[in-house]
């Protein structure tokens, strides 16, 4: 906004905004700080900041105590795999809904979203049984499928809102030039939709990475991702604060870095494509 604002007011709002931002961020910051303290220092009262004794041993301990690389790889495969598979199914659907809308398109979209409202716990036992029967229990492929289905409504909805912004005239022009349906999607629509697809992808990787119900319920060891890794470090009773913090930092750091580096697309993605 280009309104004339007095320098004092600018400083006041800047200070106020920074205080608010730091308060919101503080729990994450405190977790990272705690992860570098010794256990004794981490639980000391009053809390130590400048007088604390620092160490990187917690990270070495967590690394030695559990197979972090395996959990990490499982998280990457599940988050990326479910998102890519979801996009493959969702792109044609969202295309059709955006450019050849029928009378029931909006109802269909709302129905898809409403499937997400079914409480996961309600169907937990049948799903575990079904996954065991199909040999999908505790497999990466099983989790890729489960998380893909969980996020599919969101993926379709986001793509739909992005595709709707693309003017239909461009598609008509392509069609006049003799482009078939497939070519139209691959060469005309997709390049224009890349920013929207990127945002959708990013957001859904994050949602899948952070999913902590199915990833814990449908795995035991082989396919367990970082959400299960962190669950195994819980219940510390005050004695393992530093190690818990180190493990927590290791679980969220990859996605935190990804999110911060791709901030622009992410902000677009976080609005689910629904706010301009």
């Amino acid at each position, binding site marked *: 906004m280009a309104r004339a604002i007095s320098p004092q007011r600018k400083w006041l709002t800047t200070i106020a905004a920074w205080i608010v931002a730091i308060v919101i961020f503080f729990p994450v910051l405190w977790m990272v700080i705690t992860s570098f303290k010794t256990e004794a220092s981490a639980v000391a009262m009053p*809390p130590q900041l400048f007088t604390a004794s620092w160490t990187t041993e917690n990270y070495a301990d967590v690394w030695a105590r559990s197979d972090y690389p395996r959990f990490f790889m499982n998280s990457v495969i599940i988050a990326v795999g479910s998102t890519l598979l979801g996009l493959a199914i969702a792109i044609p659907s969202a295309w059709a809904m955006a450019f*050849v809308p029928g009378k029931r398109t909006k109802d269909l979209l709302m129905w898809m979203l409403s499937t997400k409202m079914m409480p996961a716990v309600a169907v937990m036992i049948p799903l575990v049984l079904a996954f065991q029967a199909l040999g999908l229990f505790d497999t990466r492929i099983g989790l890729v499928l489960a998380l893909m289905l969980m996020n599919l409504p969101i993926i379709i909805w986001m793509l739909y809102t992005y595709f709707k912004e693309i003017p239909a005239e461009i598609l008509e022009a392509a069609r006049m030039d003799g482009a078939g349906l497939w070519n139209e999607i691959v060469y005309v629509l997709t390049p224009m939709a890349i920013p929207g697809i990127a945002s959708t992808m990013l957001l859904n990787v994050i949602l899948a990475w952070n999913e902590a119900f199915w990833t814990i319920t449908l795995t035991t060891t082989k396919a367990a991702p970082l959400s299960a890794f962190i669950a195994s470090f819980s219940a510390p009773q005050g004695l393992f604060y530093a190690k818990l913090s180190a493990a927590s930092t290791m679980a969220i750091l990859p996605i935190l870095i990804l999110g911060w580096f791709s901030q622009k697309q992410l902000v677009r993605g976080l609005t689910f494509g629904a706010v301009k």
Partner: protein
Amino acid sequence: MSTHSTRLASRLMVAPSVLVLFVWMAVPLAMTLYFSFRFYRLLTPDRSGWVGINHYKWFLNAPEFWLAMGNTLALVGGVLLITVVLGTLIALLIDQPVKGQGALRILVIAPFFVMPPVAASIWENLFMHPQNGLFAALAQGLGMQPILFLEQYPMSSVIGITAWEWLPFATLILLTAMQSLSSEQLEAAEMDGASSFARFRYIILPHLTRAITVVILIETIFLLGIFGEIYTTTQGGPGSASTTLPYMIYKQAIIAKDIGRAAAGGIIAVILANIVAYFLMRGLGRNLDA
């Protein structure tokens, strides 16, 4: 542009999504429905048989059920209220010409990247813990008794943690919406002598309707199933003080090992979720003409 063949093609393109989502929804639902009328306890695997609507009767008559309903409502309503109100205020603040807006935004989004078990355990251990938590230290510094957050105010604590997780989402959507508001309109109102409250009430707020709608819709979808935050912190207690409907079902299935009862609870939860979904989609669908 809708010739017969494009229509057919578009149907074929929508079909896979509809099909997989339908299977994903219908198969577990059918199995849950079947179990809900059966005797099925993991501790007595030899006994089985039909029990009619007994599980449903048990569920609806359990005192815990109505408590759990109230808690679920408090969780969804509380988090929505906090995130929309605080989100609007924070968005208004960040939307001002402040220094370092980009860096500010990075800090504000951070909680969104924290997976629920981590968020819950940071808050439980590093902040709310009555002996070693930062809040306890703060209380002691002020000469007060530490507050037993998870024992005395379990539901409020869970609401607070969940609201922290969802605040970035609400703030960002509202901020994005605010930034698309034309500054000429606000300037004109300012020159006409409209107070800052009047400008907010009559120009900014109406402009935010759609954004608030999106926040409510998306958050409700996720909040109805909140589980990890409760599991990590209070385990639904003390007693049943922070047991929500999903958590009550979980307790029946995993702790009591009564799959039949849990299934009946699941069906009740699905029905309730559908009622909420119906009103939400009807009420909000109009605002959502995407």
